[in-house]
């Protein structure tokens, strides 16, 4: 009887937690703060045949949205560095992944926030060509087709096309996606930023698909069961401009904690935590002038179970298998370590960053700049040092590899990779044709002779912030052969010696010991003799 009474008493509780709670909590956690329900909007009560049609509908209410986006790097892929005057951005820089965007537009622009950037004729002033959905989709069903120049699949098709073994891209339900729009999320930002360099985790190493729903160990702020930050919690937006830039990094942010009246732009750690964030230990706060937060709080990158590419050697590309198709070799975990189209790769996970003094001012080796082909070419370089108050020790992923260059002109070369024409490297595997076409697209004449030069590309590591108990321990830097072994020009306690002082010091200590020992022995000797 008692048991039955207990069950009867517990039943409502069980029902509540079993049935009501999940629904209720889901509703409260996903509560939409928006005052608008897009499914009720008249402009969206229609079938859309293409992305630009959706944008047209969006613009009937959000009249200024496209004009705002046209000013952003997300749209222009161009960035004028105000510090050193360099013209940067995806449109201009050369990297050591797929090298450059020129001539490869339809493939590259599957990560452009627009529709139709398939060649140089793309109209950067078109308002309807802005892709609202790729950032504001909440259904997870909107995906740009990899070679669609920014368009999603309007019919069911695989990638690679007409390949039954390829990945299926379903026809997107534009009406449903448009009616469900909302704020950006880790998933929408990640749709491009997790896959930079042509695949999951390839480029950054601290941004990959594991960051879509990370746990606390992977990222203490984005922890899905904890703080659950989205990208824009830190990368604050206004007029569609997103805070935080790799091209113009604040190596140290002394603006103070961001509060209304001071600023509404975050992105740096200090904009929330300030310059004295360690409550229990002043000595740790003493580090913030010289050591970036990331240096200690991101002990390793590529920690989420995805490897990142650390080495890409283009010089070996072109090998074919018995069937005449590009040869592909995979490692035990299924990662390509050789691909006939691209060359040799080295993948790593749980990578300890390299550390350098960094002043935030990235200088790129741009197209046409003379390089020294007898040494390793720096794709980007930066200033900073122990005596520069505006620089700090930062962690970097250093992407290394070998890439084509013009042997006569001594400039980095641009391969035309993607396309159905004979010049495309991935079609005919002829470097000279590919480089001629690639350079031509940027108005540079190819000498006809190519080589491969080793390059390094420095990526400041800023994501995958670990919980504090997993941050880099003191002795990992304050020791011999520690993380900062190669950073010189300043005194680092625990690492640096004063050889002369120590030699004299230990000799004096030893002589003193021998002195008192000798004195004692002589006393014992006389004591025995005189007894």
């Amino acid at each position, binding site marked *: 009887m008692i048991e039955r009474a207990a069950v009867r008493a517990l039943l409502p509780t069980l029902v509540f937690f079993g049935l009501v709670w999940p629904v209720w909590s889901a509703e409260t956690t996903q509560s939409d703060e928006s005052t608008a329900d897009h499914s009720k909007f008249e402009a969206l009560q229609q079938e859309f045949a293409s992305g630009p049609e959706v944008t047209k509908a969006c613009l009937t209410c959000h009249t200024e949205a496209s004009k705002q986006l046209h000013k952003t790097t997300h749209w222009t892929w161009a960035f004028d560095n105000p510090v050193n005057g360099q013209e940067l951005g995806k449109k201009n820089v050369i990297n050591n992944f797929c090298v450059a965007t020129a001539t490869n537009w339809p493939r590259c622009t599957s990560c452009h926030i627009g529709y139709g950037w398939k060649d140089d004729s793309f109209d950067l002033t078109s308002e309807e060509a802005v892709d609202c959905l790729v950032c504001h989709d909440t259904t997870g069903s909107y995906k740009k087709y990899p070679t669609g120049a920014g368009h999603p699949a309007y019919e069911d098709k695989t990638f690679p096309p007409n390949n039954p073994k390829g990945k299926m891209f379903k026809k997107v339900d534009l009406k449903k996606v448009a009616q469900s729009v909302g704020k950006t999320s880790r998933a929408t930002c990640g749709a491009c930023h997790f896959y930079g360099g042509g695949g999951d985790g390839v480029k950054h190493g601290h941004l990959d698909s594991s960051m879509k729903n990370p746990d606390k160990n992977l990222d203490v702020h984005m922890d899905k069961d904890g703080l659950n930050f989205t990208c824009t919690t830190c990368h604050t937006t206004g007029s569609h401009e997103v805070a935080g830039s790799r091209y113009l990094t604040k190596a140290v942010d002394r603006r103070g904690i961001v509060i209304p009246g001071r600023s509404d732009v975050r992105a740096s750690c200090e904009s929330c935590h300030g310059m004295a964030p360690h409550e229990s230990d002043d000595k740790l706060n003493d580090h913030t002038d010289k050591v970036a937060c990331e240096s200690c709080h991101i002990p390793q990158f590529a920690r989420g179970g995805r490897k990142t590419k650390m080495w890409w050697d283009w010089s070996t590309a072109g090998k074919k298998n018995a069937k005449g198709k590009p040869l592909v070799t995979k490692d035990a975990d299924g990662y390509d370590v050789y691909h006939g189209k691209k060359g040799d790769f080295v993948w790593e996970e749980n990578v300890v960053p390299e550390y350098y003094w960094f002043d935030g001012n990235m200088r790129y080796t741009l197209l046409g700049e003379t390089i020294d082909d007898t040494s390793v070419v720096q794709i980007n370089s930066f200033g900073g040092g122990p005596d520069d108050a505006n620089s700090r020790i930062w962690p970097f992923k250093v992407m290394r590899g070998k890439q084509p260059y013009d042997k006569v002109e001594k400039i980095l070369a641009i391969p035309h990779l993607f396309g159905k024409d004979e010049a495309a490297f991935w079609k005919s595997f002829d470097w000279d044709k590919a480089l001629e076409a690639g350079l031509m697209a940027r108005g540079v004449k190819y000498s006809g002779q190519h080589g491969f030069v080793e390059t390094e590309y420095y990526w400041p590591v800023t994501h995958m912030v670990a919980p504090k108990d997993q941050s880099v321990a003191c*002795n990992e830097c*304050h020791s011999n052969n520690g993380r900062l072994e190669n950073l010189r020009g*300043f005194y680092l306690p625990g690492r640096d010696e004063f050889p002369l002082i120590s030699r004299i010091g230990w000799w004096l200590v030893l002589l003193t010991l021998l002195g008192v020992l000798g004195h004692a022995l002589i006393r014992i000797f006389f004591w025995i003799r005189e007894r």
Partner: protein
Amino acid sequence: MSRELVFSRFERFWHWAQALLVIFMMLTGFEVHGSYTLLGYEQASDLHRTLAWVLIGLWILAIFWHFTTGEWRQYLPTTQNLMAVVKYYTVGIFHAGVEHPFKKTRRAKHNPLQRLAYLFLKLAINPLLWITGLLYLFYNDWPALGLGGLSLGPVAGIHLVGAYAMLVFVIAHVYMSAFTAHPAFAYLKGMITGYEEVED
């Protein structure tokens, strides 16, 4: 000759607390310097800093005590009898029956050699460690203190010089005070109980 209280309760407390602190500061300090790994850098530097503040507190008390009691006069240097004491420690001590030339009184409890050694500790080694140590502690405030021209390397280097000097002092002091007395351990006993045989 009579048995008198030579080392007051505070002086004994000060001496032994300082001894412990100095030993642990040397242990942790040489680890922070990178001479060996014992506690790990973080624990070693934390402990070194904590002990530094305790030692500074103790020194403030001790300085106050020395001046209020007038005991500071015990360290005034003198050459009187100095050579005789040096000779005793280098020759006389080896032979039975040779007495220590210095006769301890309540007002002069340290022999001339001790006076010099302790004065050197108090006026050279300790201040060297204290000044460079405090600079080291407040490294981040140098610009605000108008010391922006300093750099950490030399400060750490001089601190290290002080540390070696301290280690040399400790070795010599332990030997002299614990193992050279007649009867054996008389000095050590005096430093523990406070009572020693002194001339009237």
